[in-house]
């Protein structure tokens, strides 16, 4: 049975049709967290977030409080909010920016106060046209309410937020690429070191980059205290989290559930959540945490949805996306399509990723569509090994950013789990599912 007793922290307004309006926001405790934060010292605000041990919700899962404390010692210049959500099958930030943009803006102001930053940027992917409009409206409304601008709510704190528009590039979700895009350049990830955003970020000044969902958690944490947040979940995985469930399930969607207290099985099969596999089919494979994550087999269905629980089994919760392949889904096609995605989105700076992704995609294409050879299976694995030597998890890195080393995950998983299907594709001269 799924455990659904935890409070809704970031999706509490989800039930209202007008959840995105300032009217609804103010009627449901809007800016309360901010007002409370402004009555505290910035350090105390940061401490609450530390106490909550809120793990960043972008994908890497780095504790937000620690990210801040690394910086608090010296002045931070900019706060950048990462809303470039482009990891395939991840759509939780889409939900947050469209359905509760005011909560996001409140969270950003709280974070800016804790960091004593006077300039923040909310970077949203350009494809979120409606989300962009709603967040801009929320920023406008915040100015009208006195929650932004000079002397916020009569305090000594001033802040400006600029809503920045991306223009369609997956790699811009990588924080240094996002900063490049914010500087008006191609989204080329920067070499780290020296370009850790915390030291050498936007305009080479210290910059904090946090995810949209991370920011959206802050009003609740300040209102209820970090301890209340930390009391939810288990171990390192505190609080609740948005999971974006997609693929062959009856009720795909975004679900906020308590960390660790639920398993993949709960999320997929509970009638209040995923509602089971379509046409009463079987789970064939699970892609947890975005397409960069190694796949799980049905044997791992009872794994709790927690950072370390999933990490301990050689994958990751990553971006909070979970894709279900059923018994009618072709794993070869899935792995090919994911590789095609990387091939399209590789920024082209590093040879292993730029050349490797296209090469692997072409070999995977012929395996799936006909013309594949038996030795192609070892060939793609060898190519993958050139991008991420050893094919271990987490992957070894031969490139500036982790886009390249993420390519092998799906191929390696698919071959490990379904080698016989790959062989059948070769014998059949193409897909066996058509």
């Amino acid at each position, binding site marked *: 049975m799924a455990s659904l007793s935890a409070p809704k922290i970031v999706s509490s307004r989800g039930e209202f049709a007008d959840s995105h309006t300032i009217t609804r926001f103010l009627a449901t405790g809007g800016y309360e967290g901010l007002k409370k934060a402004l009555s505290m*010292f910035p*350090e105390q605000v940061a401490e609450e977030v530390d106490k909550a041990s809120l793990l960043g919700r972008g994908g890497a899962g780095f504790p937000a409080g620690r990210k801040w404390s690394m910086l608090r010692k010296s*002045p931070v*210049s900019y706060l950048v909010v990462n809303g470039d959500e*482009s*990891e*395939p*099958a*991840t*759509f939780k*930030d*889409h939900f947050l920016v469209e359905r509760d943009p005011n909560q996001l803006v409140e969270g950003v102001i709280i974070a800016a106060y804790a960091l*004593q930053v*006077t*300039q923040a940027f909310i970077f949203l992917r*350009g*494809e*979120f*046209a409606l989300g*962009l*409009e709603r967040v*801009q*409206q929320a*920023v*406008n409304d915040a*100015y*009208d309410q006195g929650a*932004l*601008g000079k002397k916020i709510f009569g305090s*000594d704190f*001033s802040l*400006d937020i*600029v*809503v*920045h*528009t*991306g*223009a*369609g590039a997956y790699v811009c979700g990588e924080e240094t690429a996002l900063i490049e895009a*914010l*500087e*008006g*350049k*191609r*989204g080329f990830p920067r070499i780290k070191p020296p370009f850790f955003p915390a030291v050498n970020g936007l305009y080479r000044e210290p910059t904090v980059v946090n995810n949209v969902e991370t920011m959206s958690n802050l009003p609740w944490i300040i209102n209820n205290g970090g301890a209340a947040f930390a009391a939810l979940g288990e171990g390192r995985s505190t609080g609740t989290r948005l999971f*974006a469930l*997609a*693929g*062959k399930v009856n009720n*795909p969607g975004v679900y906020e559930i308590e960390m660790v207290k639920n398993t993949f099985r709960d999320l997929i099969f509970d009638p209040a959540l995923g509602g089971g596999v379509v046409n009463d089919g079987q789970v064939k494979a699970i892609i947890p945490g975005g*397409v960069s994550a190694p796949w799980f087999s049905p044997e791992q269905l009872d794994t709790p949805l927690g950072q370390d629980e999933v990490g301990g089994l050689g994958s990751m919760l990553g971006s909070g996306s979970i*894709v279900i*392949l059923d018994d009618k889904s072709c794993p070869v096609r*899935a792995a090919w*399509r*994911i590789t095609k*995605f990387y091939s*399209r*989105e590789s*920024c082209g700076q590093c040879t292993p990723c730029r050349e490797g992704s296209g090469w692997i995609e072409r070999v995977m294409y012929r395996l799936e569509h006909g013309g594949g050879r038996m030795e192609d299976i070892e060939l793609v694995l060898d190519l993958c090994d050139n991008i991420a030597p050893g094919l271990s998890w987490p992957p070894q890195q031969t490139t500036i950013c982790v886009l390249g080393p993420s390519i092998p995950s799906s191929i390696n998983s698919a071959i490990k789990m379904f080698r016989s299907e790959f062989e059948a594709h070769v014998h059949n001269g193409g897909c066996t599912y058509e």
Partner: protein
Amino acid sequence: MSHFRVDIRQRAEELVSLYPRRRSALLPLLHLAQEQDGYLTDEAIAEISELTLTSAADVRGTAAFYDMIHLEPVGRYVVGVCTNIACLLNGGEEMLEHASQKLGCAVGGTSTDGLFTLEETECLADCNFAPCVSVNHRYVRTTTPEAFDAMIEEVREGRRDGEIPPHGTLVRVRRNGGLRVSKKELAEERAAAEAARIARLPKDPA
């Protein structure tokens, strides 16, 4: 002589003023140029390079990196069909094929009447309505061929124009408050904040 219309030029200057450095406005300016012309024209590139104090080659080179910026003319409506993983599993490829038939153009091409351009997109983050279809970056949530056809007819007749403006128009909500404070003011504020922070630090008993 400005290539941008008066209102667009005014918004362009507003955008530039929002950022600590002019070039940061580049991506929003590219969108703005597409709002006026539907795609990125040479004239707009020249004007953006002047606004951001970069070379035209820099503007073009940056623009070419991004999928949403078109260096060639596109239809009034750009139809995007996602075939990435969640959509693949739910008939994205079939939907793309159907869209190509319905619109009468190849993937990446424009219909002969110049109304529609069809694109195969990567994940648009609307996977609970897979296969995901967008028109000018508005999610239309038509998951069956029949619903797609009906939607296209409505768009063709202009009945969805309120919700789906012509290609290029992205953000119709204008920023109306709190223009950026000057760099000097910012520095002063930061210095004051830093002084206040130091004043609050626990005093060393020694």
